[in-house]
């Protein structure tokens, strides 16, 4: 049976295979951090060894949502905040797919916050990239959930009275088994982290700092980055929840004070993915559900056989 004949194809993969015939300049401004995400993702794919056709990229809307347009794979450009529920069901229906979800900080931490919490809790085996530029870009510069307190915009002319959301801590407390932060201006680290996230067997959350040169000129994204793994100043065990949590809080506080800490913050390699948990309880088939529709020998059970209890 080869209904999904691109899955598991072993061959040399070139990152250019992920380039479609259209240009990202169509949406993204010159100097936009989103170019960095796209580039890092394309570079990570050959390392993970996945072809465009066995990869499903599900995005929300906004500038970040256009990632699926400029990345050649199977794509689903969904609606604001809803990339995760679409993505996780696709993964359940066909676990052989490499599933990546992506969206912006408004998309992922605002309107989609509920889905973020629950997808992390369930630990679906997927990678979630949140383009974090502390602003709503495509709607022209409104305050977002990660905008700093006091941030002024057309919708918060007197400055935001709200504390920004803490995405790393939120991911950890919700149950994500891999949490990292990287940045568009740090392409090597970004590529490595994305590859690692995809290879991680569980919900991998990557808070991806992206600069918005048009609407958020004040953001911290231009200052030098510190990689917590490379620096001797930060020593913590990424497999220890307590230490990871403290480090995340330090990183989240520091961000708005001008110090940008990136790197891996938490990894639990032992926690089973949701699919494994579900299979262990007998709640999900071992074989991909989607394969079954192409199996001519499969005997479909009939409702007629359930009627005993109604007699």
């Amino acid at each position, binding site marked *: 049976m*080869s*209904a*999904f*004949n*691109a899955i598991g*194809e072993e061959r040399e993969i070139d990152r250019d295979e992920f380039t*479609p015939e*259209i240009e990202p300049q169509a949406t993204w401004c010159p100097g936009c951090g989103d170019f960095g995400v796209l580039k890092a993702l394309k570079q990570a794919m050959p390392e993970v060894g996945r072809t*465009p*056709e*066995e*990869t*499903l990229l599900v995005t929300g809307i906004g500038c970040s949502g*256009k990632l*699926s*347009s400029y990345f*050649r*794979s*199977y*794509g*689903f*450009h*969904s*609606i604001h905040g*809803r990339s995760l*529920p*679409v*993505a*996780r*069901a*696709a*993964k*359940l*229906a*066909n676990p*052989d*797919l490499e599933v990546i979800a992506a969206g912006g900080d408004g998309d992922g931490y605002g309107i989609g916050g*509920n*889905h973020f*919490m*629950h997808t992390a809790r369930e630990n679906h085996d997927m990678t979630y990239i949140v383009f974090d530029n502390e602003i709503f870009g495509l709607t022209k510069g409104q305050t977002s959930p990660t905008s700093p307190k006091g941030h002024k915009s057309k919708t918060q002319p007197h400055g935001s009275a709200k504390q920004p959301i803490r995405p790393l801590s939120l991911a950890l407390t919700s149950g994500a088994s891999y949490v990292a932060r990287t940045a568009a201006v740090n392409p090597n680290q970004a590529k490595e982290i994305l590859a690692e996230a995809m290879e991680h067997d569980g919900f991998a959350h990557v808070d991806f700092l992206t600069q918005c040169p048009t609407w958020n000129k004040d953001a911290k994204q231009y200052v030098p980055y510190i990689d917590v793994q490379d620096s001797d100043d930060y020593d913590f065990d990424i497999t220890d929840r307590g230490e990871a949590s403290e480090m995340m809080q330090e990183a989240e506080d520091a961000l708005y004070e001008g110090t940008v800490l990136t790197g891996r913050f938490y990894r639990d390699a032992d926690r089973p993915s949701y699919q494994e948990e*579900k299979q262990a309880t*007998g*709640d*999900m*088939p071992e074989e991909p*559900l*989607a394969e*079954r*529709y192409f199996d001519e020998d*499969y005997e*479909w*059970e*009939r*409702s*007629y056989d*359930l*009627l005993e209890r*109604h*007699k």
Partner: protein
Amino acid sequence: MTDDELIWRIAGGSGDGIDSTSQNFAKALMRSGLNVFTHRHYPSRIRGGHTYVEIRAKDEPVKSRGDNYNFLLALGDSFARNPQEEAYYGNEEIKPLSENLDELREGGVIVYDAGLLDTDEIEDFDQRAEENDWHVYDLDLRGLAKEHGREVMRNTAGVGATAALLDMDLEHIEGLMEDAMSGDVLEANLQILEEAYESVKDDYEHTHDLRAPTGSHDEEQVLVSGSHGISYGALDEGCRFISGYPMTPWTDVFTIMTQHLPEMGGISEQVEDEIAAASLAIGASHAGAKAMSGSSGGGFALMSEPLGLAEITETPIVLVEAMRAGPSTGMPTKPEQGDLEHVLYTSQGDSNRVVFAPGDPAECYEQTRKAFEIAYNYQIPAIVLYDQKLSGGHQTVPEGVFDEEPNPDLGSVVTEQDLEDAVQEAGRFKRYMYDDEEGSGFGGVSRRSLPGQKGGNFLASGNEHNEVGHISEDPDNRTIQMNRRMAKLDAIREDLDENSDHQPVYGPEDAEYGILSFGSTKGVIEEAVDQINESGHSVKSMNVSDIMPFPKDEVTAFLEDVDEALVVEMNASAQFRRHVQGQLGRFGEKLYSLLKYDGNPFEPEEVVSGFESRLGGEADLSEYNVRIESATGD
């Protein structure tokens, strides 16, 4: 009213086991050869509060709850008491008796639990009993249950007393108990059943005429609800993915499916909200599974966003909408047909969807199958619209209805060979292809590939997109893609006209008057049609199940044929009549409405009176919660 039928009502407190007891009793009646229809009435409360289940049984097919009822088993609301035997909620304990008297027919039978209820607490009870020729039997059901088992088993004592008073054999009831219980519990229940039976036989003089009717089935029957019909239809179509959030009454389908899916190799997901639920169905379907989600009014409101997404990305999904009384959270446990327009028009832009509204459990099965077939062949969201009445109400259905071959076909999906050819010919696969300038080729359908298929990669976008899936605001492409998606409904209508059952018409072909309805009112209207025709008028009915695309030709033919038609629906604003007029663009002068929206389904008598009132104005509608609305035409 004739007494060739038994309409047995068991009343008690919510949580007192009324539902399970009545299920068993209904099955016992079915096993004895009768046709059965059940109606659940319950409050939005977990424990306590007046609840009843009505079971109507007769030899002939039963299509509705009937008019009123003739046997009351009043158990008392045990949750109205606290452990010190004092009432929690004032006089609620007596409600299972007091609240049900208005609908008890003349000559009816009452058995009440003298261990919990006291007729002295109802001021005019004796007088009413005498005036209505009610036959009242007091029995300490609670005491009997306590003596041999536990107090909660007083249901069983009540069933034993019922059997004795109706001259029924205990055989079927005992058989069902043996299926459901074992050990000491079974022993105790059997003993209580027999004690109650014997005690009524020996100690009470039977003054009433009512006896259990007798009957026999030509073929094996099963007792199922509309929710079973929908679930089983979905399973037979190869639906193996369901996602949902609990909401009454949609929860019925969600739980039935969840009960079976794991063992059938399927997946059920209870998720954070209804936006997620519908989005999961889209994700699963996009990846190559047959998927379903659903909700009731308020939850379906959240699905309007993913509904539009499914439409523009052309991802097949089936959504179930189980209506309850609205607006907002309305009356969670009461039926209404008030979400019709919500289901028809929700979501942004010119979005299309297919809507079926089955009228009974058998139609629930058939039309859910149809919904899947259409959704997957035409890549369009399909909605199965029904209501709380049909969701939980059980009915005898010939077992043969379910004896159909499974259809796991994913519909309009490309093969590997197609993809190879496409790549060879055009350089790449065109997911949203059109073949002419109108965009209406292939009935609007352009086949889809599934993630993982080689050569088939494309972007499914909620933004307008061109043939290969790239986002596009090109006016020519936009027009063609819109035309292509809009063309689907016409193609589907043609398909349905050619290949599926038509809207059922009931009554004499040359009838002078018509009754038009949709969904769960089907059976009650057919019974009313019989009564109206017996009384000398000439009327026929049509229950429309294809709501969108609308069967214009069939409904037009039906309406042209009659002088006038009464549109019967369970809502306050005549939504279905508006839909019919809107779809047909005429008949404004011919269509009158009979509306009911008090939380209870129509009874045949109300439809008959509504019909008579419209015709001659002689019927008095003041005793019913129904309203006639005049035609809006000239």
